[in-house]
């Protein structure tokens, strides 16, 4: 006889006991305290309020401001207090000159958020605020709040901009404390370092009735303080950045990157034409937006990393290095004589100099940018070798800069040709073309700059980056980046360095326009044919040395003409500027 063979009375007694406990607790809540809770519910006394942290500001390497917070007066609506939706929408749209339908839509979308303030209009000027406030007694649902907006010191493509959180972003990120009214980084560094810049939202629990009496549901942890975002010190030098922006041709789109050879720090990051990011601090008027979108030069495109282009002759350092590395050529090896071109299979490939260069060694081939030398050289290695070597040098490979959406670039493989041109494609002809940086190859100006920085650093590749330091609670934290020795031998790199020096400083070198007194400028020109227009892309990439190599640069002008005549003079100007700044700083 076991206990389970007893009848079910014990079970029933236990069940009735549980029921009694629940009913007693319920009775206490609903009958004895019912009135109190009814009042709390009616007045909505217990609520969580979220407090926004102050967003981190962004400064250049000399602590000069790039992005600062400025006060901004914003208009909010409390959907629970709306008397007449149409009237309030009409008032707002007329008084603050915003679209009536947009306002109506926002109010409609948030009709259930009775007790949540909903952002309607941002960044209202003070006079409008004063005038509008007089009429607010007719619209008790409206209120102004002074908050912060971002102010960008100058137009640029690296800081990006902020915007109002989208429904999708809000759904994914609300656990981090964002509200429906939050602003969030939409592009550039504002997006990349969003978590760092934002800080942490704070909370406060409200459990006080109208007379100030606390309900004391919660006794501990009533506050969770907001943690302000960290300030960020960038590697950018505002002076150089602005100087370069000012010397860029106004009618030709382009990009310039200047990097510190010894660290990978990006000192200037220019893409033109640009646009003023401050327009995003409030609803953008349709005309402004349409102008931005319809501009054929696409000002919102960041040409430094979001554009990829055929490099033309600035690419020639790669086949030259590969030839030296593989022992196909040596310093003095002269290849086939250039008489204005070369027959490859059934096609005649021209050299840019139709009269021909004669027989050249690698240094002169780079100096005069002779195409035939590289046609001949490319016949001596596989396409796969060239593809791998290019990637190994971080061209057509992401550099990992601290921005999103960096383009990888492109280098075709044999398989790619077979897939796109069929089995009988003439790989030889394609390879010859690729060796002078033409054909399907695409690179970003940043990749080119980083490649020339690697040459300047005798083969050490340093990850390009924009963030120098984080400042949090007066404590500075330095960031460290990847550094990698690329496999090329330093004696081979020195041969390339010599060639780049000759290009700028030797007689009849193609880069003569970048010569600067008192500075050792190394560089390579490029004029790349392309599908975007009849004129070539103008490139000039290289580095400048004083006691030691200091800065590497890449100048790119979209359909800007010839590298030697269009791009090199820009490099000359900013190297001169950098040189004089360097002297004045040394003098201090």
């Amino acid at each position, binding site marked *: 006889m076991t206990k389970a063979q007893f009848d*079910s009375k014990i079970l029933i007694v236990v069940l009735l006991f549980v029921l009694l406990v629940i009913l007693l607790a319920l009775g206490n809540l609903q009958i004895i305290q019912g009135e109190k809770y009814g009042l709390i519910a009616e007045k909505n006394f217990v609520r969580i309020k979220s407090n926004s942290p102050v967003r981190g500001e962004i400064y250049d390497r000399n602590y000069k401001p790039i992005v600062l917070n400025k006060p901004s007066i914003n208009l909010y609506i409390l959907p629970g207090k709306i008397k007449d939706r149409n009237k309030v929408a009409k008032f707002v749209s007329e008084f603050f000159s915003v679209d009536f339908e947009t306002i109506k839509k926002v109010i409609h979308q948030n009709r259930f958020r009775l007790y949540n303030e909903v952002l309607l209009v941002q960044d209202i000027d003070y006079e409008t605020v004063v005038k509008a406030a007089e009429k607010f007694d007719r619209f008790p649902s409206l209120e102004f709040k002074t908050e912060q907006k971002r102010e960008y010191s100058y137009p640029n493509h690296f800081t990006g901009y902020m915007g109002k959180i989208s429904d999708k972003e809000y759904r994914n990120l609300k656990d981090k404390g964002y509200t429906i009214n939050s602003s969030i980084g939409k592009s550039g560094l504002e997006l990349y370092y969003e978590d760092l810049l934002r800080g942490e939202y704070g909370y406060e629990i409200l459990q006080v009735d109208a007379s100030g009496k606390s309900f004391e549901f919660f006794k501990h942890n009533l506050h969770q303080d907001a943690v302000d975002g960290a300030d960020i010190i960038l590697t950018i030098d505002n002076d150089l950045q602005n100087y370069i922006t000012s010397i860029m041709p106004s009618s030709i789109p382009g990009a310039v990157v200047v990097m510190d050879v010894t660290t990978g720090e990006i000192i200037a990051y220019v893409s033109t034409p640009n646009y003023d990011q401050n327009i995003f601090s409030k609803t953008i008027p349709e005309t402004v937006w349409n102008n931005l979108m319809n501009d054929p030069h696409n000002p919102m495109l960041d040409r430094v990393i979001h554009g990829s282009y055929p490099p033309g002759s600035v690419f020639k350092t790669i086949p030259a290095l590969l030839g030296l590395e593989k022992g196909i050529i040596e310093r003095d090896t002269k290849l086939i004589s250039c008489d204005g071109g070369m027959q490859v299979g059934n096609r005649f490939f021209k050299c840019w100099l139709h009269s021909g260069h004669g027989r050249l060694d690698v240094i002169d081939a780079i100096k005069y940018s002779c195409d035939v030398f590289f046609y001949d050289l490319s016949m001596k290695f596989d396409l796969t070798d060239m593809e791998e070597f290019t990637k190994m040098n971080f061209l057509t490979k992401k550099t990992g800069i601290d921005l999103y959406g960096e383009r990888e670039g492109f280098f075709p493989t044999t398989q790619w040709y077979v897939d796109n041109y069929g089995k009988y494609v003439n790989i030889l002809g394609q390879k010859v073309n690729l060796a002078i940086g033409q054909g399907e190859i695409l690179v970003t100006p940043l990749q080119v700059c980083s490649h020339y920085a690697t040459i300047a650093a005798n083969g050490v590749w340093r990850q390009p980056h924009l963030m120098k330091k984080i400042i949090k609670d007066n404590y500075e934290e330095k960031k460290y980046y990847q550094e990698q020795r690329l496999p090329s031998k330093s004696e081979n790199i020195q041969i390339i360095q010599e060639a780049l020096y000759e290009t700028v400083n030797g007689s009849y070198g193609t880069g003569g326009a970048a010569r600067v007194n008192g500075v050792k400028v190394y560089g390579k020109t490029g004029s790349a044919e392309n599908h975007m227009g009849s004129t070539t892309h103008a490139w000039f990439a290289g580095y400048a040395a004083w006691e030691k190599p200091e800065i590497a640069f890449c100048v790119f002008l979209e359909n800007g003409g010839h590298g030697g005549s269009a791009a090199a003079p820009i490099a000359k100007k900013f190297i001169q500027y950098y040189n004089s700044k360097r002297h004045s700083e040394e003098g201090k």
Partner: protein
Amino acid sequence: MIRLKQFDWVIFSFLLLIMLIGVVAIYTASTTKTEQGFDVKNYYIKQIVWIFLSLIVLAVIQIIPKPIFEVLIIPSYLFSLILLGLVLLAPEINGSHRWIALKGFNLQPSELAKITTIMMLAKFIGKNNLQEYNILLRAILIISPPVFMILLEPDLGTSVIFFVIMLSMLAFSDLPFFYIILIASPVFSIITSFSIIIFIVYILILIFVLYKSKLSNIAIGFVVAINAFIAVLTPLIWNGLKTYQQNRILTFLDPMRDPFGAGYHIIQSKIAIGSGGITGKGWLLGTQKNLNFLPEHHTDFIFSVIGEEFGFLGCTFILTLYFLFLIQIAKSVSLLNHLEERYTVIGFLAYLTFQLYVNIGMNIGIVPATGIPLPFISYGGSSLLVNVISIAIILKYLNERSVFK
């Protein structure tokens, strides 16, 4: 095979009625009042679909021949252990590994494990003339693997359910009272060890109870020694925990420590239920519900909506119905011939009652917060299915019992 005459239509009708109340509650819980009218989400339709699916499963269980059914117990126990292992490898959802995301819904293996573990336990301790130590050993061996894996998820609340199920089943076994106290008392020791005076009072009560149960002095000495050992050990372990781990446990016991998380939800639930008063605010008209203070009020906090809209009278009506249902199941225990069937029913009963108590207790703020739904009423396919299966098994046992004792 099913014998319609002997089928327990009373239990079945209660089940249908309670699930129907669930649909009504889900309908209102997922409805928001607007200026134009009501904005209804389609959760209630999904729940109806799940009810139909569950009823089909219920019918199938009635039809399966009993020998096959019994042979399946061990494999399904092992299968649920495998699922519990797999869920630990699945990606985290809401900070723990409780769900396996399948197309369309999230499967919670611990739900299935409850049923299979109860049946496994009943099969192995539901035998006459088992030695005392043997009962205890079997119970611990069967219950440990699922509890251990569920603790790893981590899901403290569900592990506690397993513990309660095991204790209630053992309470009806041949195991002497002494063992039950031996298993249960350390829990109280842990709680009371934080104050020496309270612990001494507790030990004195324990000794008194054991003495009254006519236990030998050796047995009493043993229980007291174990409790004292645990009481000494607890503060040592506690101080060894990191602050955030301590906070997590304290918040589990007292959600009011966490005003921005669990505490906030419980307060909002209490406000909703309390403001319902005696008669409630009326069907679809709960103001707290319409303000969306509680994120998922069609699942774990559905009772707050019932309390707000139907008031004390409505709650009492539904609870009475619910308990009549449970009492009807309790009554059926003595009708069953086989010991292991009785254990199974006791296990299911303990499991349903405990979930009901923990869920409603959380809604009215008398029990720590855990993610346990209200059986048959909360929205959720896999939990509904598992709960209906447990009733289906009870109905099957009742249906196939021999009328001759």
